């Protein structure tokens, strides 16, 4: 069947210096379970970087193609609820759309290449591929025809670097280096104080802190630190949220009063997502301390941290 519906034209998008560019590997988006381990490779762009390249249109040998014009566009969009079965209904929020014509209406007789360039494109968001939401950037080449257009997408990945941690709304304090201190407890049962060196971390950072046990009547089996990444999208009633987390055991056994347990978690080795927030979609990170007692009950305290990407 594919023979009949085969596109009459091959479109190839080659970004400038693509081979030498840094790439990221992202788990395959397809829900096909066999393909889960597969990874997609995407070239990486930064904010403000120009995106340029060459579009090559190849016509099948000995055939010609009539078209109403060739257009290239650079699109950034948020795709929510990608997992929803109804592909069409998928709300897409495009936040970036630049386009340029490559070629006026005419007829393609043989293969032809068109260079294109978007200068200093401002990219506001990180690329992201989550369970419910994708933030994606791509170059879209459209060959307009009388019948169906021939379209080719070329995805690339965008990473935003902050030299300074952002001052997001959630952190009211202006002093970012101030350690986070929390004092929690269950009356007459457990009372701990914990402290992280700061509330904002770059992705290669190390979370350092300590937990101080003021009172323990609990038979603690072990204690974990989990780093929870939560993506939220949609508006209140139909809000969708999903979390992924890293579990990291930091204590084994039951401490006594006065014991201090060190926390040290290297973030660099994990595939984390920096915080981001726009319209109906946000990604937040939480650091959660979980105490599991000998009867398997879990006690936890969650506190939000901000992750950001920093150029190293």
């Amino acid at each position, binding site marked *: 069947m594919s023979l009949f519906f085969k596109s009459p034209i091959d479109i190839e998008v080659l970004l400038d210096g693509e081979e030498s560019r840094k790439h990221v590997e992202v788990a395959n988006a397809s829900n096909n379970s066999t393909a889960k381990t597969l990874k997609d490779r995407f070239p990486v762009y930064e904010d403000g970087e120009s995106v340029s390249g060459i579009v090559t249109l190849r016509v099948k040998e000995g055939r010609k193609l009539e078209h109403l014009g060739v257009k290239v566009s650079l699109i950034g969009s948020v795709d929510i609820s990608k997992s929803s079965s109804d592909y069409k209904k998928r709300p897409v929020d495009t936040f970036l759309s630049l386009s340029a014509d490559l070629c006026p209406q005419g007829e393609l007789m043989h293969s032809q290449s068109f260079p294109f360039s978007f200068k200093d494109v401002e990219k506001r968001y990180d690329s992201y591929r989550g369970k419910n939401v994708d933030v994606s950037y791509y170059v879209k080449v459209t060959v307009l025809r009388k019948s169906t257009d021939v379209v080719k997408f070329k995805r690339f990945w965008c990473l935003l670097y902050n030299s300074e941690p952002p001052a997001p709304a959630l952190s009211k304090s202006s002093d970012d280096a101030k350690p986070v201190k929390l004092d929690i407890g269950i009356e007459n049962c457990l009372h701990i104080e914990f402290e992280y060196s700061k509330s904002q971390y770059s992705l290669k950072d190390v979370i350092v802190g300590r937990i101080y046990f003021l009172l323990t009547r609990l038979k603690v089996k072990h204690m974990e630190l989990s780093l929870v990444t939560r993506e939220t999208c949609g508006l209140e009633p139909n809000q969708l949220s999903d979390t992924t987390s890293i579990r990291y*055991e*930091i204590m084994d056994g039951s401490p*006594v009063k006065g014991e201090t347990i060190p926390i040290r978690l290297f973030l660099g080795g994990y595939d984390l997502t920096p915080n981001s927030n726009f319209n109906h979609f946000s990604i937040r990170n939480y650091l959660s301390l979980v105490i599991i007692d000998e009867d398997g009950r879990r006690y936890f305290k969650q506190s939000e941290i901000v992750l950001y990407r920093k150029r190293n």
Partner: protein
Amino acid sequence: MSYAENIEQAISNCRQQTVLMQRCLSQGKLMDALKHTSIMLTELRSPTLSPKQYYELYILIYDSLSILSSYFVECHPKKHHLADLYELVQYAGNILPRLYLMITVGSSYLQSSDAPREEILKDMIEMCKGVQNPIRGLFLRYYLSQRTKPFFETEDPEAKRANISLIVANFIEMNKLWVRLQHQGPLREREQRTRERKELKILVGTNLVRLSQIVESDFAMYRDEILPLVLEQVVQCRDIVSQEYLLDVICQVFPDEFHLGTLSELLSTTLKLSPAAPVNEVVLTLVERLNGYIDRQEHPGPDELAKKLESLDISSESQNVFFVFWKFLNQLNEERPDLSLQEFAPIIKGILKLTLRWYPDNLSNVDVLLKFMYEKCKESGQTVPEDYDYLFQELLLANDLRHDPRFFYQVLTKCESYQKLFRVQNKGLQKFCVNEILDAITHADLRISSETELQKILGVCEVMIEVGAEKASSSLILDEDDGTDAEKWSLNADQEKLAKIAHLCYNKSIEKHTELLIACREWFQKGDKNAKYLYPAVICNIWKLIRKCQLMIKRKPQRREKMSTTIKQLFKLASRTINELYNTCEGGCLDLLYKLNLQTASLADQLELGDIAYDFFSQAFTIFEESLSDSRTQFQAIVNMAQTLQKTRSLYAESSYDTLITRCTLHGSKLLKKQDQCRAVYTCSHLWWATEISLLGEEEGVTDNFFREGKRVLECLQRSLRVADSIMDNVQSCQLMVEILNRCCYYFVHGDENSTHVGTKYINGLIELIKTNLKSLKMEANQGEDSGERFFIGTDGSYIHQSPVNSVSAVYNKPPTSKGNNLASVPIEFFQRTLQYIEDQKDVDERFKAISVGSTS
């Protein structure tokens, strides 16, 4: 990742993962190797293993990690940089495998010269805090300690200091975990926990060992930087097992010199231990250690020791080891009034041991310690329960005290407190101790020469002397046999030992010696009935003294006069002592009194003091007449008297000899049983026939003034023959007659027929008489079969049974009942033997030829 359910599975898992890890390493796949290691390490997370099993597993894993570690070192930095690896392993999700890996990488990293030593070490120790489970934590930290061991060797004092603080920190954490182990799990498993903890103690102790290796001989560092921290931890953990073990380890692993320098610190720490912790064991360990120090010295003399102490960097006050302990003891007493006597006792004993080793001749130390104990005893008020007697026994009879009997003697006599402490003990214990003390003294070849010393010794023995009161009832029962059954005397070993004291008394001066004996007597008097065991010893020693005087007279004739008065005094003393004995035990020991009198009389006679001898003889007679009632005893007494009298030489004046022997014979003839009468009388016949005593220079044939009256001899023999003849039992009768015949032979041999009046005619007549009497007896004897068993009748009337099987003969007082028939042959055989003797004599003595033996068949 999960762990295996049981140890076998865990071990096989570990082995398997080790193999996989090695394979990956050889292929250079580091990440895979780490993954396998991590799976292996997961086994260590198992909470179901007992400490022993855990240890087994740990050893296995330790070896595997060593392989990994050497790979790390080899390939650094060619294939990887250990600093990166150090970060890499931190991503392990579970803390335990993570930390093991971290330590493995960290310690490997330490081997390269560019490693940031301090940071790594600190970091590793800090991160170990994450494991709060006691067993897992202990092993993890032990692993850390084992791995980092080689990196702590340094000469630089600064580095040394840093290392020490790291190890101490690790030690403190380990100890905390160790203590916590006790409080885990249900209460009913507490004892099992304690047991498990003891299995694990070596893990904690290793740290102290390591410290001792690092500190080497740097005393100042030990004193200022190690000991205070360690001791503080010991005090703070408030756990008995831990306190006991740690203090023990401290005492064991650090050098003696250190302990000498920090003695007061160590001791004052024991004051702060939890109330249930055994202070005494700590003190004892220290004492052992310090005593061992002396043993380890090349020149253990006190001077060398003092010099050595001075050379150490310690205050002069603490150079006196005993003083430090003494101060501690007082402090302990003040701060821990809850400590019971039973807890103090071992401490005191320990310190005693110490002082005896360090200051072997210092009595005042001993005194002060015992005094302390005495005061404690008094404070406690009520008597010490008997269960704890052993404590005091150990104290009072400490081996170290008894080690040198002379010193022990000094303690006994010079230490006031020993006496006091001794007196407050239970009677039973006191007795036991007295026994031991007496043994020690008597075996030590000591002489008690001063009265005060004697008083002290006897004071200690008081309890033994005075028990007479309670034993009286039992000894009364014995009284009846006392006279006859000599064996009963040796039964009371305690009294025998006491009596030995009298023999130990010795002083060159006779007067002083006498005083000693009098003192003994006074003490023995308190023994009441028991005096009969004790007085003879005193009297015996008085005799000895008298003999000594006699010797001195011989040697220095010029002092004769003074000496003779002394001798007289001594006899008076003897007499008084005997009387006192008589008064105290009245019926208890008459036979003894009788014999003592006789013996004294004999002694007086030998010194040619006729009057005195007479006096004692008359005393003896008085006792005989008034009190000796048992027939057997009476007979023995007569024989005894006759023996003694026969040898006297000084009584002839004023015919006192005559009086005495007549009285003796008279008593003999008045005995109740006829056979006794008979035997007594023929024995008494010898009283008229004095024989030579070569010691006195007498010689048969040369000396011509022997007291001899043949007529009286014959009279006696005839008298006894009459008695023998009148006895109804013809076996007895014949036996006695043969005995008389023997007597006759004796006189016939030794005397002229004219002077003895015992002639051939008389003997022939006697033989005839016996033969006639034997005829009827022979008939009886023939009926009996000869079973090979033989009986004899002794000259004191006892029956002697000789069996052919047994070489030992048995002696009975009553005739054997079952073998009645055989008895008839006894006098017959006896007669045969006597006749045979006469026949034999014919060859040497012409005179015997006149005796007609006749046909014996």
